[in-house]
């Protein structure tokens, strides 16, 4: 274990003392690490449950939406009551913060007893953690509730932005881009990416997208790229030399669009919640979200007027599954697994899908559920502004994460004021 303490001079011990000390340290360390690194075996679920009792799980999750925070708080209370697992929600503005923390711990030599137990993660953050060996597992497919996701019939829970999941993260939520607008004010919103440009020209300053690398802003770039490149198959492989040629139509499009954006593209909203607030304040006419029930739940909270409606683009919108991962050095892996399994339970998933609570779509396959569990979902009212599944359509899969990283870098180069 390498600990660098380059700010503090080492005491000058005599050689003999030094030798003794190093022996003692080595023995203590080996005892300590052998205890600390005895990872729980996911296949022995009763053992996991027993070990989890009394643990405190530091769950790092994006916290930009109070409804999500409330749901997480509920899950924490339930985990405490049912499994004796205390949950602390470490609130992130960006999931990259948690990845950064694990990376920093690895750099500081803390290979056990790390501060992050569970991360809400997908896409390029997952890809980067997997690539760097920062994830514990495989564990996810051993969760008792995992078979309910129908992994054989549902590729989405085994692939994350084209990267194989390999049991390193447990599916948690499904998301798909939807657009929303106030039907009382905007009668006929644009339903394709090219139409959006024409519409923006006619309604200058009434459309905005969040500042990349915010994930919703980056997703807008990907959505536009997929539409403008005709769903190029290259997008589903790691980005290479063809990047410039494939993305050229996107930059032409954005160059044309930006002068007609909110604030003429000189300021960007920070994230999806700010986009929603701008629509509520009537600053913009069209917003979009990764949560198909966003508009419905905002209406329920009287944040948006009742005339707001949701729609998707002709040809479909990007959708993905988000997951829960456990860092390789997490201090409370058993507790994290128990929590992840509870979150995958029909009860927790149904509550999550209820627009009155959060409105995030379940990853469970209805066909795999027991009738009484299926009833939990059937009983959920969609609300006035949520599209039924047949109108939502099949999601367009996410491109390979390397595209997102290169798009973000190229966007910053092109559109940052100097």
């Amino acid at each position, binding site marked *: 274990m390498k600990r660098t303490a380059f700010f503090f001079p080492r005491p000058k011990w005599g050689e003999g003392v030094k030798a003794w000390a190093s022996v003692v340290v080595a023995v203590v360390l080996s005892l300590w690490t052998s205890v600390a690194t005895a990872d729980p075996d996911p296949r022995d679920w009763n053992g996991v449950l027993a070990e989890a009792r009394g643990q405190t799980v*530091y769950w790092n999750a994006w916290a930009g939406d*109070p409804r999500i925070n409330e749901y997480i708080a509920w899950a924490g209370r339930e985990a405490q009551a049912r499994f004796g697992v205390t949950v602390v929600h470490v609130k992130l503005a960006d999931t990259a913060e948690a990845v950064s923390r694990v*990376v920093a711990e690895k*750099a500081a030599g803390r290979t056990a007893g790390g501060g992050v137990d569970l991360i809400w993660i997908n896409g390029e953050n997952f890809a980067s953690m997997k690539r760097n060996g920062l994830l514990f597992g495989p564990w996810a497919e051993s969760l008792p509730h995992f078979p309910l996701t129908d992994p054989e019939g549902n590729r989405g829970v085994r692939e994350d932005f084209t990267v194989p999941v390999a049991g390193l993260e447990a599916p948690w939520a499904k998301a798909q881009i939807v657009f929303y607008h106030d039907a009382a004010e905007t009668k006929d919103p644009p339903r394709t990416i090219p139409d959006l440009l024409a519409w923006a020209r006619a309604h200058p300053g009434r459309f905005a997208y969040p*500042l990349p690398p915010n994930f919703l802003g980056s997703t807008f770039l990907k959505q536009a790229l997929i539409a403008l490149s005709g769903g190029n198959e290259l997008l589903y492989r790691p980005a290479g030399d063809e990047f410039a040629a494939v993305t050229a139509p996107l930059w032409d499009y954005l160059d044309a669009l930006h002068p007609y954006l909110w604030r003429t593209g000189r*300021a960007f909203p920070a994230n999806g*919640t700010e986009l929603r*607030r701008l629509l509520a*304040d009537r600053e913009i006419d069209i917003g979009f979200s990764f949560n198909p029930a966003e508009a419905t739940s905002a209406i329920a909270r009287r944040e948006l007027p009742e005339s707001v409606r949701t729609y998707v683009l002709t040809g479909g919108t990007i959708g993905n599954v988000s997951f829960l991962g456990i860092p390789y050095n997490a201090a409370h892996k058993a507790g994290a697994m128990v929590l992840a399994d509870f979150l995958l339970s029909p009860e927790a998933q149904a509550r999550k899908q209820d627009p009155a609570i959060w409105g995030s779509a379940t990853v469970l396959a209805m066909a795999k559920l027991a009738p009484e569990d299926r009833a939990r979902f059937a009983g959920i009212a969609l609300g006035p502004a949520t599209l039924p599944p047949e109108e939502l359509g099949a999601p367009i899969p996410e491109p390979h994460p390397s595209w997102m990283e290169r798009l973000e870098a190229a966007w910053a180069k092109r559109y940052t004021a100097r």
Partner: protein
Amino acid sequence: MLRAAPFLAVILLAGPIIAGLVGVLLPALGYMPALGGTAFGTAAWSDLWAEPGIGRSVLVSLLSGLITTAVALGIVLLFLAGSGGTRLYRWIVRATSPLLAVPHAATAFGLAFLIAPSGLLARLLSPWATGWERPADLLIVHDPWGIAMMAGLIVKEVPFLLLMSLAALPQLDAARRLAVARGLGYRPLTAWLKTVAPGLYPLIRLPVYAVIAYASSTVDVALILGPTNPPTLSVAVLRWFQAPELAMRFEASAGAVLQLGVTLTALGLWRLGEVVVTAVATGWLTRGGRGTCDAPLAVLGGGAIALATASAFLGIGGLTLASMAGLWRFPDALPASLTTEHWRGALPTIGGPLVQSLTIGTIATAVALAVVLAVLENEVRTGRAVGRAALRLLYLPLIVPQAAFLFGLAIAAEAAGARPGFWPVTAGHVVFVLPYVYLSLSEAYRRLDPRWTMAARTLGATPRRAFWQVRLPLLLAPCLTAVAVGLAVSVGQYLPTLLLGAGRVTTVTTEAVALASGGDRRIVGVWVLVQALLPAIGFAVALIVPRLAWRNRRGLRGSQE
């Protein structure tokens, strides 16, 4: 034991700052063994210069430091010069302390809601005066040059500079200077500017420098009001520091060093400005002009300070209303309905961060108070005032930008194997609380009549007993005020809490700033009010306790009735 107190204070203040600066300087030069950087080099710097918009970020940070300070100082001086003795003067002075207690972030939120195109002012004036049925597409908040951010900083720095000036003025015997000048026929404002201001400025120079440093490196105000693309340098450094790619740590460190350079440049330019102003003003001071545009300048000063104070209060008031609003669409001047649901919804989650804020604030303030009392008591007993150099050291945490050394401190703590969490955060808060506790207590401590102690000693009390039973009770009111100030400073800390706690320590301030990056204004309103009210509790205690404890000792109740 007591003799060690000044050294302890110096170590407490300078230690973390030096460790923090070293902690960014080494990685900025490529040396960070934990990340595989063992050779010195300039790669981090070339990455930094290649960053899109870096020039703009630097420029905005620099301008913010200079313009904010110049405007805030100008407003304070013109106000003091032109409005002395008026009713406005008494109002503003009374409003200053509460305004100072409100954390920066809360004021910034309030202002953001006040001035945005869909904000409170536009709602009050629309559509009847502006003709806006929809919010106009005006780039007011998050403007690329940071004008809104500077306005937010000015609103907050004016009370700070005003309070510092009011504390310094008694040393100047301003009334007699003014009387002489008026007797020679100078108009009132000119008389003040020519006779009092030149004496006042050196006394408030350090606070002015603190304002420059803060305004050129703020993170929370910049997040709420500042430019987005590119952001200010401090916000950019925060983003790089939190990036998941390891290599970014080197660039982020270089950015933090650059931030230090930007702040030092701002200070240097300001110093240059001082020299120029002195040279130019000497002629003006001695030429004997009695003043020609007194009245307009007085109106300008009074008007500007009234505007700044009113925007702060209106902004908070607007958020109060928002926190109880049902649907509230533009351009309705008032919400369509009022509701308590946001408060009821937020209350269960407020408890934890609230307790956390109070606990950290209490411990940090208690430590700071103990050290400051020890330093002052040592000074009184040995009769040696802390030297000027030591006094400058006290300002170190206020002048070295947080964005420069806190990242390094976090890196150093990581490298030393210290786990981020409650105690590092509390220790970090001490660094920022201590100077303010010292500043607010030292005058009262030194001014206390030494004959009380002498009398106690004559009656046979040990120095220790004289301190505990005579000096401390006599100083109850100023001590409590110092505690309230310390608590307010601690509650408002954003960056130290975020970085040293690695996000695991949530206070009302980190929570409010996290929610505010977009979030539902009504819930932000709830958090901002809690954040603004917390320091008020401290000040209320400082006001009430001495009155209860000294019901029968009128002279000890602190503020004069």
